């Protein structure tokens, strides 16, 4: 009985610690893409136990394989009167820096309510990124740790783990009907040429 109780305590504490450890993830809308596809990714944070006051991130991607088309900050740090946002994009080296700071004078209740609502939807969205796939392969999007952090509204650092993203992009497939038409067309062309050759020979 004691052993069962101890195990239950351990399991409870393990899951409760998991519940309080925030995690920053990059969530694509699909699991696989082909070259030329548009890739929508939500940068979101889960497992929050407190209201977020700021975040600063630096994402690295492969510029030869991905083209960043646009980005947009979330609304969770905006109490309706704005927030301070900073974004810098280095397209050559594939580095996107995104920082957002809620105003210290923002309404904490409004921010908490907005963030709680998003958390119930699966995580607080901090930014939405749109890429275009340029190459096939396993494409990495990674957080650059020296410039990464999440701050509570009260001004403390929130311990946050990060999960980088690997996207699978396959080569673009030629649609099956078109292949068939081409094949048949080729056969017909060949047979027609043979017939005309026979005719010529015969002539």
């Amino acid at each position: 009985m004691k052993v069962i109780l101890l195990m239950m305590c351990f399991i409870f504490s393990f899951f409760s610690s998991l519940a309080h450890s925030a995690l920053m993830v990059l969530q694509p809308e699909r699991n696989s893409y082909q070259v030329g596809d548009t890739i929508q990714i939500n940068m979101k944070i889960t497992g929050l136990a407190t209201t977020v006051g700021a975040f600063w991130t630096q994402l690295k991607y492969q510029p030869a394989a991905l083209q960043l088309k646009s980005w947009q900050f979330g609304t969770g740090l905006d109490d309706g009167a704005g927030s301070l946002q900073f974004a810098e994009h280095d397209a050559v080296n594939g580095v996107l820096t995104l920082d957002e700071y809620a105003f210290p004078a923002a309404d904490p209740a409004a921010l908490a309510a907005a963030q709680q609502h998003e958390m119930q939807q699966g995580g607080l969205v901090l930014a939405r990124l749109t890429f275009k796939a340029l190459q096939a392969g396993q494409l990495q999007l990674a957080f650059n740790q020296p410039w990464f952090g999440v701050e509570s509204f009260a001004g403390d650092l929130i311990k946050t783990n990060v999960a980088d993203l690997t996207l699978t992009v396959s080569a673009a497939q030629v649609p099956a009907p078109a292949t068939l038409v081409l094949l048949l067309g080729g056969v017909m062309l060949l047979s027609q040429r043979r017939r005309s050759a026979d005719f010529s020979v015969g002539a």
Partner: protein
Amino acid sequence: MRLKSVIHQLVLYVSALLLLSQAVASEAQAQQAASFSVPKSVFYQHETIEVSFSGGSGSNTDWIGIYPTGIQPGGQSATDWKYLNNTRTAPAAGHTQSSGKVTFTATTLSPGQYSLWFLSNNGYGQLAQAVNFAVYSAADQPKLTVKNSALGIGEPLALEFYNPNPAKTDWVGVYARGVIPGPGSAAWAYLNGTKTATSPVASGSLSIPLALAAGHYDGWLLADDGYTAKAGPVAFSIKETRPIAWVSPQFSLYQAVSGQNYQLKLSAFLRKNSSAATYQLMSGPGWLTLSPDGMLQGMPALTDVGSQQLVVRALDLTQQTVVDATITLPVLTPLQQEQSAVKVMTYNVWRAFGQVNQGYQKGLESILTSAADIIGLQEANVALAAKLADELGWYHAVGTYPGIQIISRFPVAETTNIDFSLVTKIKLPYANNLSVWLANTHLDPHYYGPYAAELAGATSQSVLIEELRSQRLPQIKTLLLGLQPLLAQSAETPVLLLGDFNVPSHLDWTAATAAKRNGVGKVIWPTSDAVAKAGFIDSYRQIHPNPLTKPGDTWSPVFQGTEPQDRIDRIYWQGRALKPIAARTFTTAVETTIGREGSSITPVANNTWPSDHAAVVTEMALRYHPADFDKNDQIDSRDVSLFRQQLTLPVLPQTFDFNHDGRVDQLDIRAMMTLCQRARCASL
């Protein structure tokens, strides 16, 4: 052939002439370079006459001879003589001395008038101007003796003197030990025991009242209202026998800063006696130590920020006395330090604090009370400024004009003099290594304009006519001209100009203030006008613009009655890096006032305030907040953006630690945003 011979002879003549002219020129040069002197003009028969010389003809047989005054060398044998090697045997040829000393014993000379001659090459060619001196009989030597060489505070100095050739204006002066007599004696009296010369006194006893602090002093018998010593120095000491006591049982110290070394000398806060006091830290923060001689030292951490309390004990082991003080020590963050002000003071110390009883101690305590950090002293002397600086554990910029000195809590980087004014560069305690130039002056006190304004029918013009009789305008013009190179750099290194200007300001004499000045209204005082035109801003008037409601008079808290009151001590500033945030006149208690200047000052001898001027204290702060990165006097989103960019640098000053957590990082951004003046950090 004949022509050749003529040319040959001509060449010979020219060569000879050239050699001759060279010889004459070199001899002239040697004579020009030769000099000699004796330390005094009167010797007594038992004394040694020490002659210092330099230069000469270059011969090993140059010599110095003594002849009765009026006798030319060669006219008769020298009364005494020596070669430059101080013997009567010439050194070997080629062994010449270019400088040195030759001594004669006055016992070989009969009393009388003599001349020293510096003569060349065993002959009588004069190398330098003769020096006259007198030899008196040993019995004729003036003497000065101290009856009691260990006095208590306030006890008079008892002396005996013998002055065989008296003048009625011979006098006895008291100076701090080691100070050569000159203007600014600590105490004095004519030989009749008063400050009014009546008749010559050849011998007797003398009692001089002393209002001096404990210390070591010298007495001198001086000739004829001058500073030529007839006898002395005779040493005596004043001992403080009262029990030791803290200036106050509770007091605050200058701030410490987290992460920075702190050092402060406690000695000034203790009223000491002549025994050596020792100090013990009875309680206080762990980071702080106290040496037995009273030096507090340590480095506070960020967790120590706030108001620290300590109890310090002072012990007088001789008198078995123990006194405790409860001391507050503010500990600031680097950011708070950056926002703290530096207090600059101009302080005329009224003849070296010598006009009131225990003036030095009162002056020292007034400085502690004022909490000033940098002080321009007028009417001080080198010894007083050095003593204050030593007691406070401060730095001292020594002025060549003795009355004008500067002492500073912060290091003195450079010192120069412009005319008689003292100009000093002081490094301020800010992270940006800012320094400030401080020019301290004391202008001509004569032809004081406000006195002219008291006359019946006085007008602005009549007042200015009186003003222009003084040297103040040329003096300030000389100073401003000399400051020009510094003013040109004032954007980087601010310049402060302070002192006793002995003249009012044109900002104070307006139509609105005419009623208090015999109807004389607007006067453009040329001195203050010249200072303003040089780009200086009057800090007191900047903070208190209305001269009617805030006159800021500094002359005089002591001389009242009909004495015209005015603001003649001022602190000016210019430069973009600093700004005044407060200004005030400052005195400690003035218990007794007297009438116009010239009244007897005896009634004010027990005043707490030791000066006849009020001091002025201006608090200067950094012009820009550390968060105002673009220096536009506004902290806004642009500054946040600039700070965010700074965060990529490897090293950042702790002054950017806006959230006071000991690190400079992204967590400081939102803390910085709380400093924005406009809602949501909006830019103008």
